[in-house]
């Protein structure tokens, strides 16, 4: 029997599962640094979030959507990892599970599952937890390298937290003694969410994604560049020492957000032009929130706000069709 089908008769070896595998691989370095610095609790939170997300997606597909469970595409693992990376390491397990529920059930399945969600599920989960449990979500454990029972909740502030409260009250020299130096921030020896602390680990992940062509450079580059340009501009123009651009670049969730959350396929624009607009928007909003709002950090909100603009951006930032060159 001859088989017939429409063209093409061959396909790229890449598929959805392989893409998700690559994203998971790219997130491993940041996770390892998180565990090395924050110990066993970090590992527990990561495992809880991943298992929670996968289990909820499985149950939701089977009993709510009544479709073949989509857990095989590994996207729930990515959501779980990203959610965990956005949490402090000593989150109670039940709170992490609430985060999983909001991320998977409300932000993803309720919109129709993979590819249909308007907002980044992991960020929705994180922001929900942040608003519901502000104490736990801002209690940061002191970084201690290879101390696996690091449960000491002697709260350490994040760099951005110090900067936020520093405005006008602390002199420049005192500030320098309070915030970690660039090397510590670059390597990740600083307080914060477990996956966001190490710039080098996140860069490593980004390079892997770029090398595998899973993401294009447009969103990470324009997001970080816009933000860096704005902070440097204000730093040198106003002399406001709470805006040291390099400290800002390396602290908070900027790299995690710009490399792994803003580049999420489903919630970012399709055309190159659109991606650039989206990334610049994220950069501007992150700057505005960090500088002018009550919150020290603005990456999650910035990306979620820009997520809402994606359909509009897709409608107006179309690629130029061949043969329609403007004269």
């Amino acid at each position, binding site marked *: 029997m*001859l088989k017939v089908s429409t063209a093409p008769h061959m396909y790229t070896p890449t598929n959805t599962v392989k893409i998700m595998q690559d994203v998971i691989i790219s997130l491993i370095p940041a996770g390892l640094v998180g565990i090395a610095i924050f110990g066993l609790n970090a590992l527990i939170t990561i495992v809880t979030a991943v298992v929670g997300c996968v289990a909820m997606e499985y149950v939701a597909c089977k009993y709510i959507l009544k479709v073949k469970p989509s857990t095989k595409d590994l996207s729930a693992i990515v959501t779980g990892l990203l959610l965990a990376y956005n949490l402090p390491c000593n989150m109670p397990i039940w709170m992490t599970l609430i985060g999983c529920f909001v991320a998977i059930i409300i932000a993803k399945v309720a919109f129709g599952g993979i590819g249909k969600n308007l907002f980044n599920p992991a960020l929705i989960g994180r922001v929900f937890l942040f608003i519901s449990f502000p104490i736990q979500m801002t209690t940061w454990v002191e970084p201690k390298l290879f101390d696996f029972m690091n449960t000491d909740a002697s709260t350490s502030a994040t760099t951005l937290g110090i900067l936020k409260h520093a405005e006008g009250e602390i002199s420049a020299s005192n500030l320098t003694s309070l915030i970690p130096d660039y090397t510590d921030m670059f390597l990740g020896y600083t307080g914060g969410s477990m996956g966001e602390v190490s710039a080098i680990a996140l860069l490593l992940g980004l390079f892997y994604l770029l090398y595998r062509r899973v993401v294009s450079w447009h969103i990470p580059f324009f997001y970080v560049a816009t933000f860096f340009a704005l902070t440097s501009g204000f730093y040198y123009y106003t002399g406001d020492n709470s805006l040291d651009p390099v400290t800002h670049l390396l602290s908070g969730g900027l790299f995690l957000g710009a490399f792994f959350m803003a580049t999420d396929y489903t919630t970012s624009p399709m055309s190159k032009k659109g991606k650039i607009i989206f990334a610049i928007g994220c950069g501007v909003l992150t700057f505005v929130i960090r500088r002018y709002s009550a919150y020290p950090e603005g990456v999650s909100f910035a990306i979620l706000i820009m997520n809402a603009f994606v359909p509009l951006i897709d409608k107006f930032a*179309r690629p130029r069709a061949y043969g329609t060159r403007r004269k």
Partner: protein
Amino acid sequence: MKKIKTFTIGGIHPDKFKLSSDIAIEDAGVPEIVTIPVKQHIGAPAKILVGKGDKVKVGTLVADADGIISADVHSSVSGEVIKVEETETGSGYPEKMITIKVEGDEWEEDIDRTPDIVSEITASAEDIVNIIRKSGIVGMGGAGFPTPVKVTVPQGKNVDYLILNGIECEPYLTADDRLMQECSEQIVIGAKILSKALNAKKTVIAVDENKPNAIKTLKKAVGIHKGVSVQVCATKYPQGAEKQLITAVSGREVPSGGLPIDAGCVVQNVGTAFAIYEAVQKNKPLFERIVTVSGDDVEKAGNFRVRIGTPSSYLIEKAGQKSEIGKIIFGGPMMGIAGVNLNAPITKISSGILILKDESAYKPEVSPCIRCATCVDVCPQGLEPYMIHSLIRNGEYDEAEKIHVLDCIECGCCAYSCPARIPLLDYCKLAKYEIRKKK
């Protein structure tokens, strides 16, 4: 060394599988029976001139072009017409065909069968167009558009670039590659004939980077027959698509909805140029062509000189099959058509026959779109296949037309690259069909 050129929007790099680029063209010989379709081109079927019992020779006109957009058909064998009736094509549709039982191999007397290369072009521009028309030549790259129409320049238009397409970007296929390696001089003379007919300012043969032998022989040939140049293009699919090739070579774009001549360009396949050489210089009508037989199920991939009307099964037997055939493709794996009929005849536009194993014959399972934007990135026409897909699923054909779906060249880059294996090309084709039907 001139710069390697390419088109600017999208494109992909599928595996090449050029199994037969070093295998010399072999004469497939004459089968016992040939079945010659009277419609091997775009346009009206040719009017049949013969009936059952008529004796024909190789090169005898058996069907006459019906109107401007049509083409003459010549017998490829000598023998007796045994049937003139509707026969199943490769895709399984009935079409008028002339079946001839072969007796010997007697050619029409006026065909020059000597191997000498005739380089002096004596025919006038007008004569050239007439000879091309009388020889039944159509675009041999796959489209099958009647060549006489393409070599008649509309009033007020000029040909700045005559581009010979030697790209052959489809995986597996090597027919043009072999022809360029073995008959480069004839192709260059064919180019000069076309150039004379079109009064072209520049004549360029475009070859892609991964055909080093063809580039070498062509460069030698353009050294002998002056006035033609060779342009090396990057190996990228669909470099051989007309619009993409024009952009690569000339830097111009064919306006949306327009023809290549609107950009001052004419593109002809190298196989067509070879056929034009044979017609004009050797008085030989188009009744044979080079066909690649390849695929993952062939024993010995090869290139054959085949008489039009030869059954595909005759060629498959020559190449040998490894296991039971899963799928037969007429053309390349990106744009070719899967056939239902192993006996389907070779036509003027058959560039290749691919036979695939059973495991390679299935369409993969489709999963939901993850909005990865790969389809947008790879589309060489700058379209948004994902958007066309969702519009067509909702029946919004007008909206699809607004985002230029009619400019789709059906190259298949989107469907090839989709990680969710959504048949994006099918939706584009459906949209084009429905929109054109309404007009």
